[in-house]
């Protein structure tokens, strides 16, 4: 047999799990170079792989005064036909509170979105108000410049983030909307949203002005078809549609067709998510939990009630409070993954047989994101200052880390990052 053509080699490699791909760098020099090549990074990104989640755990997350960043855990969901399981990997934990990872020390973080294997984090404390981008595979972190409009010492409530890439221009953008109260005549006041956007490589946030409508609390924008989607604030009850979008290419905000939710349900807790390539809107009512799916993007009539889970059905765990259910991901066999933000439980819904399966409970759950690992290098954004979390981590440094023990699998606690930050100047 002759040597495999590059095209086939890349195709085969791109279908392997991330860790195996890294191991394959050791096979030969040709493979090492192939895997570092940007065309391989793109091919790998375009393929569909096992479902991963990034789980943010923080022992002190309920304490507002806490300045503990907590820990990020990368877990894979094994998608079997009749059963779902979590695949734990002992090395995919990053304890952000370690003194060896100084960038996040003495601050809180929250997950604000993920695209192409990059994770957007907000870092905040009295001294910090930063937006960071992190790739768990390459272990790179970059901190975006601060916005001059919203200086560090003023604690604005940042209500909505969106993180995506424009397929037209290939530009990565972080968009955020901030709520503030403005005084009207007399005693009246009104809440308004103001937006700003950061395009990677530009070095500065741009103000996009006041939005026509206020965005609902701190939801992370659901990104699909080059648009970020958020639900409007409940105060916007006169708006003809209840979803607002941000076009990542034109940077325009627009109302977007929302599902025909009954008026009495309109005050229920709603969230948006992207499941299996469709925009979904969950509604947690008094007695049931409904998932609306937009079958054809942008078509109002295509909103369809995919799942209605009655609280009364016997398989519904009684301690579950549906107000806190968030949709995260759709799996191959039409299973929908969701997380209960209150108890930290991860569930799989099986709409076909109307069954609910609890997969795992995460202690001290503060945040979560669906995640697709990628080899995209932050150093490619040449004008940004990407840093690599140091490579060599002595075993002794891992001993002091908090233990997040889990029943299943091998969740041996190990830290991921480490002592020094190597600064790679552009």
């Amino acid at each position: 047999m002759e040597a495999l053509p590059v095209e086939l080699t890349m195709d085969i490699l791109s279908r392997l799990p991330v860790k195996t791909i890294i191991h394959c760098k050791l096979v030969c020099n040709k493979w090492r170079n192939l895997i570092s090549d940007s065309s391989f990074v793109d091919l790998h990104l375009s393929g569909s792989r096992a479902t991963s989640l990034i789980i943010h755990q923080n022992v002190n997350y309920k304490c507002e005064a806490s300045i503990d960043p907590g820990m990020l855990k990368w877990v894979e969901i094994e998608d079997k036909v009749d059963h779902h399981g979590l695949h734990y990997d002992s090395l995919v934990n990053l304890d952000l509170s370690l003194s060896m990872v100084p960038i996040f020390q003495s601050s809180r973080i929250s997950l604000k979105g993920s695209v192409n294997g990059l994770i957007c984090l907000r870092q905040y404390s009295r001294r910090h108000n930063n937006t960071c981008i992190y790739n768990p595979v390459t272990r790179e972190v970059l901190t975006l410049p601060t916005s001059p409009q919203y200086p560090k010492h003023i604690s604005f409530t940042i209500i909505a983030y969106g993180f995506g890439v424009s397929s037209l221009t290939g530009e990565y953008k972080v968009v955020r909307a901030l709520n503030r109260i403005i005084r009207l005549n007399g005693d009246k006041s009104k809440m308004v949203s103001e937006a700003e956007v950061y395009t990677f490589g530009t070095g500065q946030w741009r103000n996009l002005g006041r939005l026509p409508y206020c965005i609902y609390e701190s939801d992370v924008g659901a990104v699909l078809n080059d648009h970020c989607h958020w639900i409007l604030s409940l105060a916007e009850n006169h708006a003809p549609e209840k979803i607002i979008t941000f076009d990542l290419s034109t940077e325009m905000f627009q109302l977007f067709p929302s599902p025909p939710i009954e008026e009495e349900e309109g005050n229920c807790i709603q969230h948006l998510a992207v499941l299996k390539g469709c925009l979904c809107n969950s509604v947690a009512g008094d007695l049931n939990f409904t998932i609306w799916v937009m079958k054809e993007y942008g078509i109002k009539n295509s909103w369809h009630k995919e799942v209605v889970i009655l609280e009364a059905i016997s398989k519904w765990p009684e301690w579950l409070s549906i107000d806190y259910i968030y949709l995260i991901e759709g799996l191959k066999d039409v299973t929908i993954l969701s997380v209960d933000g209150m108890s930290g439980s991860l569930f799989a819904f099986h709409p076909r047989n109307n069954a609910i399966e609890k997969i795992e409970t995460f202690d001290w759950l503060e945040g979560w994101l669906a995640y697709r690992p990628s080899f995209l290098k932050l150093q490619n954004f040449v004008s940004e200052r990407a840093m690599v979390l140091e490579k060599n981590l002595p075993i002794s440094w891992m001993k002091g880390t908090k233990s997040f023990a889990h029943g299943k699998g091998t969740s041996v606690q190990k830290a991921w990052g480490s002592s020094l930050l190597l600064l790679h100047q552009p």
Partner: protein
Amino acid sequence: MSKKTLTLMSKDKQLFNIEEHLAVQSVTIRNMVKEDGASSVIPLPRVDSETLALVIEYLNRQQAPEEDEDYVKKFVDERGEIPTLLELAQAALDLDIKKLMDAACMKVADLIKDFTLEEVREALRIENDRTPEEEKAIRDEFQWAF
């Protein structure tokens, strides 16, 4: 009206007949037919007769579209030997038959994902040209993965 037949010739000069409407699942053949009518024999200088026979078997399948996905999977599963799969993937690449190439590559990936490095090199006939220093550099760079 009788169906038009094409003749494909393997690397080792064996001839295979296949109906044109089935052969054009290969984008390469489709383009050749479009360009010059492909009346004569189509040579496939990189595909041996054993592999070409498999490709012809695949192109001749009589599957309902909704079962096609499963059929392709089963087709490659039944030929689970890595050298055969690689030849098949190579032929599917040359002939531009995407489904077959995807399935063959996926199967190879499934087979090698639990291999040791040495097993991967052996299965794909790759020579280890790494120095220990280079190996250490990679292990250091991606320490979390080892």
